[in-house]
């Protein structure tokens, strides 16, 4: 744990972190990019989740929807992690001490786990049913859980701003 603490203090005292913390324009700019990217992640994943739940795109196969949407999701996710990381290093210690920040990270991890488990178990025989309008229960469950988790991620993200004084 000591090493992690050292790493954090190195990050926090870097020139980059200093700039984000002190510059009046840089933090809002990074934050705006973060909001924009998060919106694309959550909105595009929702399209897949609604397909899994049988509420949208039911005439298209699951893989046709994921092929058409997930490249945007992953691209936006990279930008969200990059911009989020910049905000994080500007005040790492304070963020780590904020319950909503920790909850947000755990929820993102849970959303990732949900996806991995769905791919490994739920979608093993995907090709057999992916054209159906009504999908097997595990697929619908994964879609519903994903929506819930991402809504909570956004809520925690907004709550960080109200429970932590930065800058």
């Amino acid at each position, binding site marked *: 744990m000591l090493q992690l603490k050292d790493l954090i203090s190195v990050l926090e005292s870097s020139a980059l972190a200093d700039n984000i913390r002190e510059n*009046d324009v840089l933090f*809002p700019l990074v*934050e*705006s990019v973060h*909001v*924009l990217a*998060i*919106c*694309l992640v*959550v*909105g*595009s994943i*929702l*399209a897949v989740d609604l397909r899994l739940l049988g509420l*949208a*795109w039911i005439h*298209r196969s699951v893989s*046709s929807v994921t*092929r*058409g*949407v997930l*490249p*945007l999701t992953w691209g936006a996710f990279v930008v969200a992690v990059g911009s989020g990381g910049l905000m994080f290093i500007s005040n790492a210690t304070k963020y780590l001490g904020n319950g909503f920040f920790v909850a947000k990270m755990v929820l993102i991890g849970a959303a990732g786990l949900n996806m991995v488990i769905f791919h490994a178990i739920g979608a093993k025989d995907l090709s057999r049913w992916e054209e159906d309008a009504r999908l097997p229960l595990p697929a619908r469950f994964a879609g519903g859980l994903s929506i819930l988790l991402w*809504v909570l991620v*956004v*809520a925690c993200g*907004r*709550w960080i*701003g*109200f429970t932590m004084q930065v800058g």
Partner: protein
Amino acid sequence: MLKDLSSWLAATPLSHTIQTAGWIIPTLQTIHILAVAVLFSSAVLMNLRLWRLLQRDVPLPEVARRFLPAIWPMLLILLLTGGLLIIGEPRRSLLNTTFYLKMTLLVVAIVLTAGLQWSLASVPEFWEKDWLRRLAARLTATVSIAVWCGIIFAGRWIAYTQVG
């Protein structure tokens, strides 16, 4: 006049409730952002289809039918949550130039989206007849994405440009 309106709004019982219950403003903002997420993703996915970068296997009118109509109910949620946020903290936006920039951009985005949706609904092949129209479609969609981006940036910037 805007100052009077702000003071009057801030004195209403509804504004008082929103101000004093600490959870209401973050909740409204969360709903606001989630609606932006759906709206903005729909607009971007539509744009990427027009550029033939994603969903090439799906006909353009079908993509438009899926994504463009989703924008209007989201706008309603945005106006509602945005309206409540203004009632809760009137000075934050009504006396803020960034807020008016956001509203101006919003009008432009609405006109562009409505135009795109209406044209595709009345003539499905409207934007694919020749190369000039294909170019115009890409241009329109790209400008509309840029305007939506501007709206999101302005929205975040309202928090940093409030007076007093």
